[in-house]
């Protein structure tokens, strides 16, 4: 289904939604948000794009298969979970950089963990939806 209006709108909605998703991701530790919602919003951005332009075109923007985001995200999350072991701490213990960074605030393994969650969620949602839409239409 082609709609010029939707196509045009998705062109600026995509960056807005992506920006918004990063915003949600980064602020999760302080305000409502976090990796899940962030990831969901990001994937919705791409889903919207695929509605407007077709999944093939969205895949081109993504460049990599969304499936590959899953190991990436899992890896980041797992590593940030596992990193404390190298410092002799139990798995999952929070490690923090002492000084807060501007905008982001305190940076620690929790943030990387959330980033992993974010990537996995994007990978998962897009894999599911795009696989369906590419193989049934």
């Amino acid at each position, binding site marked *: *289904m082609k*709609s010029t*209006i*939707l196509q045009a*709108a998705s062109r*600026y*909605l995509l960056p*807005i939604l992506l920006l918004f998703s990063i915003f949600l991701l980064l602020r999760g530790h302080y305000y409502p948000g976090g990796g899940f919602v962030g990831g969901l919003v990001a994937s919705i951005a791409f889903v919207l794009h695929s509605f407007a332009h077709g999944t093939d075109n969205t895949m081109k923007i993504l460049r990599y298969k969304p499936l590959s985001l899953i190991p990436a995200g899992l890896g980041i999350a797992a590593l940030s979970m596992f990193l404390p072991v190298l410092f002799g701490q139990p798995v999952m213990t929070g490690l923090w950089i002492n000084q807060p960074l501007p905008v982001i605030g305190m940076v620690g393994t929790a943030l990387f963990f959330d980033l992993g969650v974010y990537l996995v969620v994007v990978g998962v949602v897009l894999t599911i939806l795009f696989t369906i839409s590419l193989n049934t239409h």
Partner: protein
Amino acid sequence: MTDILIAIISTIGALAILVASIGILRMPDFYLRLSVTVKAGTLGTGCLLACAAFMFDDVSVTTKTISIVFFLILTNPIGAHLIAKTAYHTKVEKWKGTHIDDLESINEKTETEAMDKQE
């Protein structure tokens, strides 16, 4: 002063929403319902968001409300447009009072073209 302003704006907003809901219930056909609801809804919500901005009197909240309104304005018409278009394509009935339909002729034309092509 602010309180009165807020009271007025919020009343407008709430009433607009009420209008929208009455509209969706009372309007005789789908297009008319859609026509009323999306805008009245957006207006009402916008007003209430404005109230929130006044109420909290905080840049972060104001930017938030502005962006919400912005998003609403951005997205609601698109949804409305798409569903209207679909409804038309799926031949959802128009009210009997609908007296002009420029789209009908266009669609018929494309349909016959498509049929020609098939043949």
